[in-house]
């Protein structure tokens, strides 16, 4: 009987990343657009795709890792099902953003920069959503909310599961 050499199949997410690499590799300065595309597709940038990106763009793994970890926007770990961002910049601080963040931590049962144990929600600070005349401002997933009172925060966060 003939033996057939077995190459382990590439995990689907790495195959996806290789497709994205092929789409972006010829753009000038392709790394950021590519990382955005990967995070958009997979929700985060898993460490095991770094070699695929590095090989595709002719960069070292260190360079790719350095870029991913330099920018706040890119995640190496999956976020919760919902992402709650509370603005901590000056205009929102002048309107009670610090108290709002403390309240969000309490309501969600999860600290800033953390994902709750059940994976339902990630809480993060953000430095300016550009809603500085409608402070304090927060963002929940893709939706912006301005002039957020304590009572309104309770209603907005109450529905997250």
């Amino acid at each position, binding site marked *: 009987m003939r033996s057939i050499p077995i190459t382990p199949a590439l995990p689907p997410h790495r195959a996806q990343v290789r497709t994205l690499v092929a789409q972006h590799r010829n753009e*000038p*300065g*392709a*790394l*950021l*657009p590519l*990382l*955005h595309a990967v995070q958009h597709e997979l929700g985060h940038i898993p460490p095991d795709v770094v070699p695929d990106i590095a090989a595709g*763009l002719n960069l070292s793994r260190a*360079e790719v890792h*350095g*870029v991913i970890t*330099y*920018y*706040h*926007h*890119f995640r190496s770990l999956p976020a919760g099902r919902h992402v709650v961002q509370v603005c901590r*910049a*000056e*205009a*929102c*601080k*002048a*309107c009670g953003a610090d108290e709002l963040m403390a309240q969000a931590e309490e309501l969600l049962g999860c600290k800033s920069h953390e994902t709750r144990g059940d994976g339902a929600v990630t809480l993060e600070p*953000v*430095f*300016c*959503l*550009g*809603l*500085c*005349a*409608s*402070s304090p*401002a927060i963002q929940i997933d*893709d939706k*912006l*909310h*301005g*002039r957020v009172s304590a009572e309104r925060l309770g209603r907005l966060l109450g529905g997250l599961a």
Partner: protein
Amino acid sequence: MKVFIPRDSAALAVGADEVADALQAELISRGLDAGVTLVRNGSRGLFWLEPMVEVETPEGRVAYGPVAPEDVPALIDAGLLQGGAHALGLGLTEAIPYLAKQERLTFRRMGITDPLSLDDYAAHDGWQGLEKALTMDGAAVAQQVLDSGLRGRGGAAFPAGIKWRTVLNTPSAQKVIVCNADEGDGGTFSDRMTMEGDPYMLIEGMTIAGLALGATAGYIYVRSEYPHAVAALREAVTRATAAGYLGDNVRGSGKAFQLHVRMAAGSYVCGEETALLESLEGKRGIVRAKPPLPAIEGLFGQPTLIHNVISLASVPLILARGADFYKNYGMGRSRGTLPFQLAGNIKFGGLVEKAFGLSLRELLFNFGGGTRSGRPLKAVQVGGPLGTYVPESQWDIPLDYEAYAAVGAVLGHGGIVVHDDRADMAQLARYAMEFCAIESCGKCTPCRIGSTRGVEVIDRIVKNQNRAQQVILLRDLCDTMVNGSLCAMGGMTPYPVLSALNHYPEDFGIAEPDQQAA
């Protein structure tokens, strides 16, 4: 008949989509929908009135606001569609004093047009600057920009025309136009409003620059926190390209200009121009040493004109109306207008475009109406996170680059953040150092290490551990950061810190007013 409900992020954040849905549903249920066109315009920038609904009437547009979805049936009962009277009625939009008192040049279309409608843009003076520029040579266009007195609106206030001339005169097979739309300063939103509310103006400004300076490619680097701006720009670029305002043969001129919209990734320091270029090249956003200037050696080593959104968006008007028209606004060496952004704890927060030269007091009270909380106004930070806290003794100084520089302050990007008497200035100073520690790119030591030491020193001052000695240490540290940092991140973080210390020493536990207070 047209009804306008803004699509600006700040309107969406307070329920503009929900109001639009409620209005449409109500019109359909009453059988009134056939004759009504709903336009999703940009915002007028009167954010305490958002969501603001406007209706076209023979006398002009009539405004209502702030409108909640549940107000819609009563508004229609009151004759909203004819501009009828209602408790939320604001009268003719253009007559609202906040708007009527402004000098809107760059923001003259804001909130009036459908941002993505090419017809609207053309009908409101759009493309006139480009058409004019197409009849001139590059040197003449650069000369117009220089003669207008336009200075970089991102904050550094460098004469724009000098940059244009440098890029023009640097020989190269390829040149690039880059728009810095990484508006990371807390308290600023004029770039966001421009990109969301009048994107063709920015496209026109960049196209004028591209054709004049011989660049065939342009990049707009937009922060990832502005997804609506990114979406609006991408759609606008697609439509402008299809209509021949961008592409291989701009308006039949035989010249090419392609525009690319790139998303940033949440690094504040990438608003610094050389860090931005590194980021566009796909690297970590680390500040470059200058020289070489970007105008000589910028993106991918090519001569690069890099400007803030408002700088580029000012160019179409300058070309269309001439340098003198623009130059006739303003004072001293600060020519034209600045879109000021009233933010934070302010009653009437929003966008106020005025010629340089008015006072902060006028902005804070005649426009802003004092604090939103109704408490005494304590501190005002002008010019973003790296700007100083301006005390009341300086509120009558004219808003002018040189007048502010004379008291050690900056106008920056025109952001004005108001704090009431509950503000703890020592904590705000600490925050400035902490923010610098979080966002420092790490290349130079004063910024990377100094910011962390700054947080520690301020903590010791507040806890009264060797306070007098620690204050000396803080001043010494700030001196090192100001004079030893590579860019404005480390170099200007001491501005808010020292102004807080000098003008509000009691918040640091220092009873006597400091001798060095300005």
